C-alpha cells in the first residue's frame, strides 16, 4: 500500500475510531439522570 494512502487511512480511521469509542465510553460511564424529573412539573401541552 502507498505510504500517503496508508497515512491518510490510519489518520482518518484513527480519528473516527477514537471519537466513536470516547463518546460511547462517556455514555456508558455516565449514570442515569436524577430521579427528580422536570417531567413531573406538568408542562402545559402546547398547540
Amino acid at each position: 500500500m502507498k505510504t500517503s494512502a496508508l497515512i491518510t487511512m490510519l489518520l482518518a480511521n484513527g480519528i473516527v475510531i477514537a471519537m466513536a469509542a470516547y463518546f460511547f465510553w462517556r455514555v456508558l460511564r455516565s449514570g442515569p439522570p436524577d430521579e427528580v424529573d422536570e417531567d413531573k412539573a406538568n408542562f402545559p401541552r402546547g398547540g
Partner: protein
Amino acid sequence: MSKENWGSRVGLVLAMAGNAVGLGNFLRFPAQAIQNGGGAFIIPYLVCFLLMGLPLLFVEWSMGRYGGRYGDHSTPFILHNVSGGRSLWKYVGVFGIFTNLAVAAYYCYLESWTLAYVWRSVSGAFTGYDSAAVSQMFTDYVSLGTSEPIIFWILCLLLNTWILSRGLAGGVEVAAKVGMPLLILFGIFLAIRGVTLKEGVDGAIYPGTEGLNFLWTPQFDSIWNFKVWLAAAGQVFFTLSVGMGSIQCYASYLRQRDDVALNAMSAGWMNEFVEVVLGASILIPISVGYLGVERVIEMTQTGGLGLGFRTLPYLFQQWGPILAALAGMAWFGLLFFAGITSSLAMGTPVIGFLRDEFGWKREHAAWVFGGLTLLLGAPTVFFFQYGVFDEYDYWAGSVSLVVFAMLEVILFAWVFGMDNAWAEITRHADIRVPKVYKYIIKYVTPVILIVVFLGSLFGDGGILAKIVNKDIYEAMSKATDPMEIAELKKKHLFVNASRWLLVAVFVLIAYMVWLADRKRKREGYIPIIRND
C-alpha cells in the same frame, strides 16, 4: 396516556445510531467516494461532517427534547412550539411525517431484498452460477419473476409493524441492541476479508489494498472542486438521517433532565465509524480486488446498489461454498440490520402523531402505519421498472430532506433565537460543547444547506430538470424503436402519477395537522409563546 420513555441510555444511543446507519453507509458512501476521486473525497467529507452534520444533530436532538416537554412527538407541533406558536411552521413540520412515511414505503421493500438475499446466500442459491447469471437473478427478482419478492416484502412489513407495536423500550430499543452489535460484527468480518484479499488467491486479480490505495491516496487539489464538496455535503446529510423528523421524534421521548449533546455526539460518531471504517473496507477492496479500479468506477455510476446485489454475491462464490455462504449472510445480514433500525425510526413519528393528536393506542397506530406503508409501497414494488421507486427516493428521500433541514435550522437558530437554541443544546449536557458551534449553527450550517439546496436545483440531474422530465424526453428523442418509445411513454406516465401520489399524501397529512390543530384549540391547548 402515560408518557413513554427510553429504557436505557445505551439503548437510546444505539437506536439513534441505528436510525442513522442505513444501507447508504455500505452502498452509497463507497459509490460516492469512488465517483468523486477516491482520496479526494475524504477531507471534504469530514469537514462537512463537522460543519453541517454535527450541528444538525445538535439542532434536531434539542428540538426533539424541547417538543417532548410539551407532549409533542412529531415535527408539526414541535416546530409550532419552537416557533413560538406561528401557524405556518406546523405545516413545514408536515415534512417530518411525510418523509418518514414515503421513505418507509420504498425502504421496507429495499430492506426485504436484503432479507431474501440472506436466505439465498445461506441456501446456496448462487452456487455454480457465473457473474452474468447472478446479475440476471437480481433483474428477475425486481421484475417480480417469482412470488419471492412479495413474500419477503410482506414479511419485512409485518416484522417492522410488530416491533413498532411493542413500543420504544420493548421493541425499537431491543431491535437496536441486537441489530447494531451484530451489524458491527458482520462488518468487521467482511472488512478483514476485504483488506486481506491477496492477488492471485481465490481468483482475485489485485490485492485488497489496491482499493484502499484508490480510496485513501490524498488529492489535495480536490479541495478546490465545488462538485466534490457538494457530493461530500450530500453524503454527510443523508448518512445521518437528518432532515427527516425521526431524530426529533426519538429525542422527544427523552426525560427533560437527559443530556442531548453527548448522546448526539456518540450516535453521530458511531455512524461515522460504521461508514468510514467499515463502509470503506468492504465493497471497494473486494470489488476492486476482482474487477479493478476502472471497472468499479464504471459500475458505480448509478450508485452502489448494483455492485452490492449483482456483483458481490458472485465474488463471494470465489471463496468456496462455506465462506461464500458466511460472507453472503454477513453482507446482506448487516444491510438488513442497517435497514430495519432505520425503518423503525421512520415509523415512530407517524405513530407518535396519531397517538398525540388523535389518542390512538400504540398497537393500532403501528398497524395503521404498516397498512399505509403497504399501500404507498405497492407502486414501488409493482412498477419498479418504470422508475416509481426512484421517484420516491428522489422526492421523499432526497429533496424533502434538504428542504426540511434548511428550514428547521433557520427556525432554530434565527426564529427560536440562537441564545435560546444554545441554552437548549447545553442544558443538562454531559459534555462541554465547543462554543464555536454556536456560530457554526447560526451562520455556517444554514449557508451550507442553502448552497446544497441551490446546487441540487440545477444541472442534468437537478430538481428543475427532473420536474420537466428532461431525462425521459431526451431518451425519447434518441429512441427509434417503437417498443422502446412506448416503454418510455409508460415510464413518463408512472413517474408523473407517482409524483401526484406523493403530493396527495403530503396534502392529506397537512389536512390531518389542520384537524389536529382545530381539535387542540377546541380542547383549550395554549400555544407556547415565549417572552424573550
